């Protein structure tokens, strides 16, 4: 239980995927313009992260490992994730349109979200058990959510700020991200029980 808690806290705060590992920067910068879309995107990411962690763990454990084909990880994982996301999208669209409306539109973005593949690669590197891998995915998703939603609030405010011309758009967003990241440095030395 303690390990799981450590994984949870660690992935949310200490090694926040976005702010300290630079994973999922594209959607972080792309979809954080409005809090409402940020919430939708975050929901979709958490959902897919958990699901993909489970499936990739199974693929890794039962397909690759027994055949000592670890070097095929990248191909196998990305195929799995891409197909999984698409499958989820298709199914949601038909079966639960309301949920699709809320989350589904963000799904295509997730295929190329390095956070998903990154967390899969990390659980292999760290040799997590199935449960640990799933919790890790969930926590990384939450960390992404935290950063994205906090940042979306900041960006909504930036929208009407009087920003120097050269810095308008991406540059000021990155500078803002830098300041948020400085604030998150407080968590860097968190002692995890």
């Amino acid at each position, binding site marked *: 239980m303690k390990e799981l808690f450590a994984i949870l806290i660690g992935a949310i705060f200490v090694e926040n995927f976005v702010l300290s590992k630079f994973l999922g920067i594209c959607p972080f910068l792309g979809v954080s313009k409005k809090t409402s879309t940020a919430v939708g995107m975050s929901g979709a990411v958490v959902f897919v992260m958990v699901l993909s962690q489970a499936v990739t763990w199974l693929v890794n454990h039962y397909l690759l490992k027994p055949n000592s*084909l670890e070097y095929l990880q990248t191909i196998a994982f990305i195929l799995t994730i891409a197909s999984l996301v698409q499958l989820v999208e298709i199914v949601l669209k038909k079966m639960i349109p309301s949920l699709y409306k809320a989350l589904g539109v963000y799904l295509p973005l997730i295929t190329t979200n390095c956070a998903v593949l990154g967390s899969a690669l990390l659980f292999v590197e760290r040799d997590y058990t199935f449960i640990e891998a799933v919790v890790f995915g969930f926590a990384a998703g939450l960390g992404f959510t935290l950063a994205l939603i906090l940042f979306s609030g900041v960006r909504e405010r930036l929208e009407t700020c009087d920003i120097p011309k050269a810095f308008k758009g991406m540059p000021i967003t990155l500078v803002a991200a830098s300041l948020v990241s400085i604030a998150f440095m407080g968590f860097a030395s968190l002692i995890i029980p």
Partner: protein
Amino acid sequence: MSVIIPVAIVSGLGLFFGVGLSIASKVFEVKVDERIEKVREMLPGANCGACGFSGCDGLAEAIVNEGVAPDRCPVGGASMVKQISGFMGIASGEVVEKEARVMCDGRFDNIQLKYKYEGIEDCHAANLLSGGAGTCNFGCLGLGSCKAVCPFDAIVIENGVARIISEKCTGCGKCVEECPKHIIHMVPVTSGFTVFCSNKDKGAVARKACKVACIGCRMCVKACPSDAITVSDFLAVIDPEKCTNCGECAKVCPQKCISDSRVRVTA
């Protein structure tokens, strides 16, 4: 053997997902607007989210349904933007190239000021205060609300009147909507002679308000060989469809409020 297993696994995975997906896409098919699909195909498909929408599908939908500009996509580059704009342009049936024109020449030398305006630099704000500071109640307020909304920097305020730089104007029409006095009109780019006035008051009143106001004297109507000018509410209007740019109207206008806008363009 060592080669076969990895190949088998990868292709097995591929086959499994491929078949599964194609079945799923058939079973769960949902109809989409054809134009969205077309636009979607023109987009790069990187699904990177840099446009701020949920991937390329999201942007395609926004382009078609909400009129979002395709240059929101930083990936595709100029050629893609052109392609999509072209496609959307054809789809909406626009052919005649138009540009905006400010129908007023109420510069400070031509009008007087009723009062000294103090407040937010915004035409609507001034318009709310007794119709603006100028003596002409129909004229340009010169506080640059149109300039502020122009996405192409195509408007300058000169001596209290907005002027549109036609090389930069793309005919988007944002200024037309913004102007509280409704004095910016869309005209075909080929249109030359224009009545630079929007005053609908009687001649005497209009003349008092502005030196170059149209007084509705109908001299131009008589002079026009192609019946392109009509006067209503003491204001002459040139129909660009009929106008041949002969310039007879400008010659006879006693108020000098008709002039050739093309001169400014090429000068």
